[in-house]
């Protein structure tokens, strides 16, 4: 067996089996994530149908241009992540891999930063339930509109948590990549991590229109 065909972990017969197991494992995990977000998206949809007017009015208080800018940042980070995964194969091009990973992490951090500023604006405008819910312009249906913001914060914070976990893992991989023992288990891991990162982006692609646009 050549080095490329050797599995990293002893429970596998060869690298092909290990790769297959890792891929299936990651996709199965993403399936659980879809149901995780699916539960709360279902609840949101139920209330949107119950209170269409209140939800529409509440949605108008968000800033679509901030959301659009953040969507752009996130899509670009998916692109750099794809480039990083593309670089994974060649051992010689380790520097480029590190560069793309750091760029992806920076773009992710930008998204989180923008989101934090947006939360601050929402807070100042009295749109944050429990902490400060005294809208500058009062709502026609205050209770139902508050429900919209509960879901807005719940969904975006859940998404942001996934991003922060992703950034931490990415920085961890950068550290590992820079070390000498950069080996093929890390290559496999970065490839799988790429799937996770794209998935988190896709979640945002769903959140952005339902929260910002269809108001």
């Amino acid at each position, binding site marked *: 067996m050549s080095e490329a065909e050797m599995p990293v972990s002893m429970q596998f017969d060869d690298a092909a089996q290990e790769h297959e197991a890792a891929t299936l494992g990651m996709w199965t995990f993403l399936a659980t994530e879809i149901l995780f977000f699916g539960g709360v998206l279902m609840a949101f949809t139920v209330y949107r149908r119950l209170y269409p007017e209140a939800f529409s009015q509440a949605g108008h208080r968000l800033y679509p241009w901030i959301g659009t800018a953040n969507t752009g940042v996130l899509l670009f980070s998916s692109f750099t992540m794809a480039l990083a995964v593309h670089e994974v194969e060649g051992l010689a091009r380790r520097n480029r891999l590190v560069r793309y990973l750091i760029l992806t992490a920076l773009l992710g951090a930008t998204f989180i930063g923008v989101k934090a500023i947006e939360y601050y604006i929402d807070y100042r405008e009295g749109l944050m339930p429990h902490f400060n819910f005294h809208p500058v312009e009062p709502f026609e249906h205050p209770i139902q509109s508050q429900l919209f913001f*509960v879901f807005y914060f719940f969904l975006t914070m859940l998404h942001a948590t996934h991003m922060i976990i992703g950034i931490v893992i990415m920085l961890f991989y950068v550290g590992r990549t820079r070390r000498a023992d950069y080996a093929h288990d890390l290559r496999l891991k970065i490839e799988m991590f790429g799937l996770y990162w794209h998935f988190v982006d896709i979640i945002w692609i769903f959140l952005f229109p339902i929260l910002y646009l269809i108001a």
Partner: protein
Amino acid sequence: MSELQKTIEPSPPRRLNYINHDWSVASWLWPKDHKRIGVMYLVTITFLFFLGSMPAILIRLELLTPKAHLVTHDIYNRLFTMHGVTMVFFFLIPSIPTTFGNILLPMMIGARDLAFPKLNLASYYVFLIGAILAMVSLVYGGVDTGWTFYTPYSTTFSNSAMTPMIFGIFIAGFSSIFTGINFIVTIHTMRCPGMYWSRLPLFVWSLYATSLIFILGTPVLAITLLLLAAEHAFGVGIFNPALGGDPLLYQHLFWFYSHPAVYIMILPGMGVVSELIATFSRKRIFGYHFVAYSSVAIAILGFLVWGHHMFVSGQSMYAGMVFSVLSFLVAVPSAIKVFNWTLTLYKGSLVLKTPLLYALGFIGLFTIGGLTGLFLAAMGVDVHVHDTYFVIAHFHYIMVGGAMMAYLGAMHYWWPKITGRMYPEGWGVFSAVLVFFGFNLTFFPQFVLGYMGMVRRVAEYDAHFQVLNVLSTAGASILGVGYLLPLGYFFWSLRWEPKAGPNPWNATGLEWQSPSPPPELNFEVMPTVNGPPYDYDTVALHEEGIKHV
């Protein structure tokens, strides 16, 4: 085979196995070996089982008399909640998959370990943290909402220790998810040469079906509990009608997981029973494909029936009708299993050892539990018996009469494999009989009580229900002895019982081709499979000494 090996190479003075190859503390705290993790789970959930039965003892003592003499109503609420939460989330759901599934799944398909050993270890510690958080909630006085945490009671009105309890269950849920991912990937990618899907042991099929529910159901419970926690912590109205929320939505989300969770508890038990019946009837399992596919069918149908918990909660009548019909449908794959087991037993050469006694008990009790489930799936009958002891008796026939019997059967059947020692057969038979009679005496009267109208979750009842309640409490004490006996003799057997040898039951199945206890990487020679599963006809020919050509 072992004799053959002896002639080839001088055997070492002490054969190394997964238990004794490394005694360092770190190797027991952070094992990656699926068998050690399984043993850790076994110890933990056994403890949690006895912890969860303590409130049940107090409940049965309280119900000896019609008036609430022993505990106050508030304490009574906390007792049945603790019993339900501990037994459902911290014993029954992890019980068979994380112990016997963990230990046996890789061995049964001829693999060296699960696909992701670190994830497996993480699942154990995540489970432990979840269990500890739930215990913290108990220290702070417990929770009084019942194990279902219905809103707005749990979020607005309950003044008990909700937060650690919710997070405990939320975190423990990830242990289910990790286990589910691990099992699915292992079964898909790590079968040894010749182990086709159509040759998988039926226990593996049932674990596959269970894992499907783990990965598709548990995340929904997790997000529901997170929403509940947000509402509880910040006083926002996700499920609170006063703040625009819909309490029924909580019930939909909760039962979307928690009804399939019932099949998480019973499906692995069904897999165990298939193994036991084939082995102890000395016969090929009747209708292998039907038994295998019915596990998957139960897992899929299980996701479509949750509304039958809500017939009287105000969901639309038409939704109720659909859920009622779908619930009836679950009876079809369940009955397929029961008929196939019965036909396997028919004209088999039965060996009446303890595991088979538990399997026979399972068939009878599961059938009663399943058939009374049909009563409850009928909307008209459900209105009458909803929230009565009829429901209690029904699901205990499935959970205790089914899942728990299978768990004990599995314990006796695979104990020699896991520990290398036999268990005392006489005591085993005695306690199996005790459990069977104790169980029926406890729960059969509750069918009658429920039908007569005794409601659940209340510490007091009408005086004319007392005779049946006394019978039930008497049965519970017999059942308790039946559970304590195995705890004693299993420990005893570790030292005093004879060594088991690799295959004490003369069973087929790859796990029996390995020494007991198995070596660290499961097999001395990695196996291949050349024949159908449960090929007891061939085994019988060999036993009779006839050369099979």
